[in-house]
């Protein structure tokens, strides 16, 4: 397996734990090989009209709708939830703003929000949520065990807070935005609160 090229990394780049192989860290949206493709979605994480992420059928997000290859796209992955009042909508809005400044290049960028709260967020709910911010955004959901598995491979942590008397709860989670370049490499992790203009600049770099 081709090793990850680390020579062009900056300190913004996320390095997977050494025990995490390249393919497993990137399998959600970024797997590029076909013949030796691990079955990244064998656990059944599914997505709305995202279809083929790459590779064979085992590497497709499964869900209703058409296939939309992400071959030449920079893919932003965000783990969030729809009952999130502050950081999730802020991030999605900022990504939409960044895309708006990219002009036609924005067509080569997409975002997938993986819900970390499938108990309240099914695929349809998550899809409606993300498309409010930008029609081009995609959603992914699935059984909690599968989401946890994928999140862990991305180095993403999440946990539900203790429910209050009314049963309401929040999620604590890694609020970073993950940027995967057109070669399928996870290249940039943006901490919450990234400026849309800075994000647009980084995306231009990933697209060049």
């Amino acid at each position, binding site marked *: 397996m081709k090793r990850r090229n680390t020579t062009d990394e900056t300190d913004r780049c996320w390095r997977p734990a050494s025990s995490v192989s390249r393919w497993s860290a990137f399998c959600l949206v970024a797997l590029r090989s076909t013949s030796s493709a691990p079955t990244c979605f064998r656990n059944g994480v599914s997505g709305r009209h995202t279809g083929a992420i790459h590779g064979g059928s085992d590497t497709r997000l499964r869900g209703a709708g058409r296939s939309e290859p992400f071959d030449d796209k920079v893919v932003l992955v965000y783990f969030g939830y*729809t009952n999130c*009042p*502050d*950081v999730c*909508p*802020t991030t999605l809005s900022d990504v939409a703003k960044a895309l708006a400044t990219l002009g036609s290049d924005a067509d080569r960028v997409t975002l997938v929000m993986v819900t970390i709260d499938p108990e309240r967020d099914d695929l349809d709910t998550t899809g*409606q*949520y993300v498309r*409010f911010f930008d029609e081009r955004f995609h959603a992914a959901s699935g059984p909690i065990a599968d989401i946890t598995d994928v999140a862990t491979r991305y180095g993403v942590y999440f946990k539900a807070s203790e429910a209050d008397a009314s049963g309401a709860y*929040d999620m604590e989670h890694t609020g970073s935005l993950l940027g995967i370049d057109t070669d399928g490499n996870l290249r940039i992790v943006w901490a919450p609160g990234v400026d849309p203009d800075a994000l647009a600049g980084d995306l231009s770099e990933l697209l060049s």
Partner: protein
Amino acid sequence: MRRDAAFLAACLVAGSCGSAASSGLAAHDGWSRPTPPITNVGAIYFTLTNDSGEGDTLVAARSDDCAEIEMHETMSTDGVTTMAARSEVAVGAGSSIVFEPNGLHLMCLGLAKPVVDGAEIMVELDFISGAVVELSVVGDDR
């Protein structure tokens, strides 16, 4: 009306009627990001200023447009974001506090209707001194 009367009575007893004008407290630049109809939570951001000579503490907020409002603070450590409930937010004499994205905010639970760009939500802020400050919040995707 009844609440106004009760408030007047309370502040007369307390000896310092804390209207926004007389308390030196003001809340301005209130805004809330438009919310997807699929969710019923939102965040309210604003700037709280205290021009008086005494500190005060924000202890509650309410609005006809929210079933409940909680004070929250988003904190990020090593990329992990947590939202902690705050029972009070102190604002010192002559100082101001900014409620802003990825930081302090009012969480509106049970939105009566989605926050829409340009639409206004009225919020009342309750202080420990008894002061009640009105905050105008405008839907704005800034």
